[in-house]
């Protein structure tokens, strides 16, 4: 009797849950979408995935670590950690200074190999013509460096604009304590 009633009850509960599973089924992975929105979209592949979307999916399904996005840096990592509800992790790679690629035009042979490599179509030029990088479009992913047969592409520091200058944190002891707190928070 005991087994029967328990089993019966369990069956009823199971059926209800099965129906609920059907009713509340979700399409796609909303977490991956949210993570992808946080990534810098450089498509650089430094995370080990072939682009930002695959990395976002890997993080959402907890396959990849949250600290692999080098261009996104600390800020992106903390944002993802907040979203995922996990502890922030230190980024192993050094914080990158924003760079852009630059073609030394007199050396360029017009082979178009870099144009094919650029993930964001930031290089213009036709075969046998000098290629130019659109500075405003370059994400600094360095993917064009290796294909160039004559090594005529340099990575230069992104020029600093007075319009983009922003105030640093005030140089007081308390703000430093706050900063240390943030840093120690990351290395837990």
């Amino acid at each position, binding site marked *: 009797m005991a087994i029967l009633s328990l089993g019966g009850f369990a069956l009823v509960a199971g059926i209800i849950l099965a129906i609920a599973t059907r009713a509340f089924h979700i399409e796609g992975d909303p977490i991956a979408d949210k993570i992808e929105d946080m990534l810098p979209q450089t498509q650089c592949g430094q995370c080990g995935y072939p682009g930002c979307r695959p990395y976002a999916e890997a993080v959402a399904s907890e396959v990849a670590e949250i600290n692999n996005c080098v261009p996104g840096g600390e800020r992106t990592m903390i944002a993802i950690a907040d979203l995922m509800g996990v502890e922030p992790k230190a980024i192993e790679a050094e914080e990158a200074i924003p760079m852009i690629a630059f073609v030394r035009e007199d050396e360029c042979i017009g082979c178009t190999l870099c144009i094919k490599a650029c993930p964001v179509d930031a290089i213009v030029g036709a075969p046998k013509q000098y290629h130019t990088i659109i500075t405003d479009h370059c994400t600094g992913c360095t993917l064009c460096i290796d294909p160039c047969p004559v090594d005529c592409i340099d990575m230069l520091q992104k020029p600093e604009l007075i319009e983009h200058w922003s*105030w*640093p944190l*005030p*140089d*007081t002891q308390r703000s430093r304590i706050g900063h240390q707190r943030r840093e120690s928070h990351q290395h837990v």
Partner: protein
Amino acid sequence: MLIHISSPHMHGGNSIRITMLTVMIALLPATIVSVYLFGWLAVLHLCLCIGACMGSEWLALRLMGRPTTPVLDGSAALTGLFIALILPAAAPWWIALLGSIFAIILGKQVYGGIGYNPFNPALSARIILLISFPLMMTTWVVPMHLGGSALNLYDFNTSLQIFIHGIQSIPGHLDAMSMATPLGHVKTAATQGIPVIDALKSYDYNLLDAFLGSEAGSMGETSALALLIGGIYLLARHTITWHIPFSYLITVAVLALIFSSIDPNQYAPPLFHLLAGGLMLCAFFMATDPVSSPVTPLGQIVFGVGCGVLTWCIRTWGGYPEGAMFAVVLMNMAVPLIDHYCRPRPYGRKT
């Protein structure tokens, strides 16, 4: 240091120390009354509490390896002053010492020092003491200048003996030296089913005494007048705003008025509530403690009303005769949420 600092390049000159000193000056009348009523006992408590608070703050900062200058910013001394004023005069020295240590270490320093404590340190200390040592925290010495006192607290030796060994060490009947507070008396009467009016009559209660302070109670809580003077001074100096004390007192008064007009036998009148116990001290000094109270004007009103409702409910229906300290600490818990949801409407925005 001057390399990167933004405007404004002028400052009004206010500082934490000035703020704390202002509050201490505002507490001066209440302190004088406490010395007048409890003689050397009050002086001993004041010295011990202030010393212990500053000492434990210094020790805590040393142990944490932080600069010890904040000891002198006046906040620890103020906490000590508060603790002395909310202790019953008969409490022995170790209670005062424990209270001071609790307040500074558990109430403040573990949270990161001044500015970060979510609860009022002095009141948390009092709650800890009240729950840990209920009897000692509710034995009230008959103050001087109130006929029938068997003790001469102006005598240093008597005071010192009570201070060190407790009131039990004094020969004589305990009932002759101590008495209940008006709130405690009414609460006991209520549990026995005696109507409030009769209870007040049997206590010989009169409002003038309660206003001036000739009644049993914590050392600094008895005189509503002295506290009121201090409160008005703080308001005039703009150290506090009217929002918290007024909303707090008005809420208690309105609740008491409504209920006592419905059933005067069961509920005490508003003036009794206003003048009794620690309400005045809490309303002007404890609830307005900047660190543990809301920042925004609307939030402060919500906070004051909440304190008022809780105080009155606990006094009237609860197990403890006095609810002000519980009310303030309970509302302290809600401060972050109040701050978040009671923000003022910014200029030019609809909601």
